[in-house]
């Protein structure tokens, strides 16, 4: 009897664990199936076509793809230096008493839902951009900044964790030769944690690419490559969020699904790269 229960339990756990693989495969399959109509009708136009006009049955996703890439790039440019600065502060500079409160604050910031970042961006940041640069205040720049602020806490926290893996004794050896804090950070901590730091940055970028709510409020959903950084634009997630419920034809839906598939493949690849090349998980046994 015990033997039977043991077997059932073991198989149950294995079933649920395997389901994770199954669900992932299912997601890719379904997205692919739903995209077939668009793939056959549009071909490469979904990626290269600049015109997105559903009523004309034109579905060129170029503007959305470029918008995704540009907003993510902008966000990274803004967030990476600050995140590294915060990580250095938390890992090497902050006095013990500050490490916990500041560290926890950063982690709580990371827990705030992205929709709230979007709201804050819309009501508080857009006016600032509008006053500074003119125009509507909604666009690529605002989206990039809001996205940067959103991924900043997560990026800072995991980069700090990577830096903290440096053994104290290694750092002490450098101090013992007369190194300053910065010497130790640049010559010991960063080279030692290099893989983890880069992996963390890439992982954060992978998340930023798929971010919807923080940018939907402030991007503008205009299917055009913005001529200036303050022009409205769109990204794949923003397109999906705004248009999924308005799609009224098979080809429209299928194009949206194809964009979703492209987005999934891109972010999956980026995150997988960060994982396999940079972030080897250490198991304690």
């Amino acid at each position: 009897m015990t033997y039977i229960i043991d077997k059932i339990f073991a198989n149950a756990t294995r079933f649920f664990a395997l389901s994770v693989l199954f669900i992932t495969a299912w997601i890719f399959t379904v997205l692919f199936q739903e995209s077939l109509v668009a793939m056959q009708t549009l071909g490469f136009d979904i990626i290269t076509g600049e015109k997105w006009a559903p009523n004309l049955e034109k579905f060129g996703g170029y503007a959305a793809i470029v918008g995704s890439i540009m907003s993510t790039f902008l966000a990274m440019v803004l967030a990476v230096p600050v995140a590294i600065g915060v990580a250095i502060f938390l890992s090497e500079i902050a006095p013990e008493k500050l490490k916990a409160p500041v560290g926890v604050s950063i982690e709580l910031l990371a827990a705030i839902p992205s929709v709230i970042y979007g709201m804050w961006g819309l009501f508080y940041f857009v006016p600032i951009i509008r006053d500074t640069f003119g125009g509507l205040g909604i666009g690529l720049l605002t989206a990039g900044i809001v996205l940067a602020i959103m991924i900043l806490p997560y990026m800072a926290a995991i980069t700090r964790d990577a830096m903290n893996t440096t053994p104290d004794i290694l750092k002490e050896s450098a101090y013992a030769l007369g190194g300053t804090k910065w010497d130790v950070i640049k010559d010991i901590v960063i080279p030692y944690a290099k893989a983890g730091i880069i992996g963390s940055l890439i992982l954060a970028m992978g998340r930023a690419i798929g971010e919807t709510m923080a940018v939907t409020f402030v991007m503008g959903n205009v299917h055009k490559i913005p001529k200036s950084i303050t022009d409205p634009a769109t990204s794949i997630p923003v397109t999906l969020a705004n248009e999924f419920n308005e799609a009224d034809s098979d080809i429209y839906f299928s194009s949206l699904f194809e964009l979703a598939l492209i987005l999934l493949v891109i972010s999956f690849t980026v995150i997988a790269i960060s994982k396999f090349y940079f972030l080897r998980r250490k198991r304690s046994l």
Partner: protein
Amino acid sequence: MTHTKKRILINKVVLALSTLSALIGMGFLFWILGILIINGVEAINWNIFMFEGAPPGYEESGLQHALIGQLILVGMATLIGVPFGILAGTYLSEYGQKSKLAETIRDISDIMMSAPSIVIGSFVYAIVVLPMGHFSAWAGIIALTIMMIPIILRTTDDMLNLVPSTLREAAFALGAPKYKVILQVVYRGAKAGVLTGVLLGIARVSGETAPLLFTSFNDNFTNYDLNEPMASLTVTMFNYATSPYEDWQQIGWAAAFILSMFILGLNILGRLILLAKKGK
């Protein structure tokens, strides 16, 4: 300037810059929390809890439908997702361990944890909403469950793995079958950590909007029928805040306030549980 003096100067500059970054980070935290609290407190009144959604301009407008809807959606997702995730995590830590299969499952789960949530929404649309012919709470629940599983799986795996192998060996040595070792010894030892993982998972899933946009969609009225669309705090926030109506926007802030307090509360509770365990 001697080389050493130069080094000391650069050191001071870097320290200043990095402290500045930390201040910038903290600054945003306080800014966002600040406006949340200010706007939220101003917008909260009994109406929020007494009334359901109403067109703009109506006095008797509230969030009751969204609050109840959110509880149902997240609650059901938790009910399904947590046991699923815990059992899957148990497999990884207790049975699969370092095997190739287990490592693959861990990697895929990790990647899916960071994958775009709007894609999950599209997936559930295709497999639930389309066949059903309409939006439904079930679709939203399934989407949230899919998001919750990798989180619970990972934390369970990590927490169970922290239980020292000597504890397991002692139980086996007394003749206990594996499932009893897991249920009675390992789970007990990792209780606090797994609970924290669950709380954090709930917190994360509660804040999701994108997967609900085209699954549970929205509703202005409180309804308990899982086959019908259902309101949620997050989607309501999105709709109300992007509307041009001031009273709706205000209600949106009330929703934002309630939601973030809930999520921050769960986070802090989770940490306190872990701290309490460390203290023992």
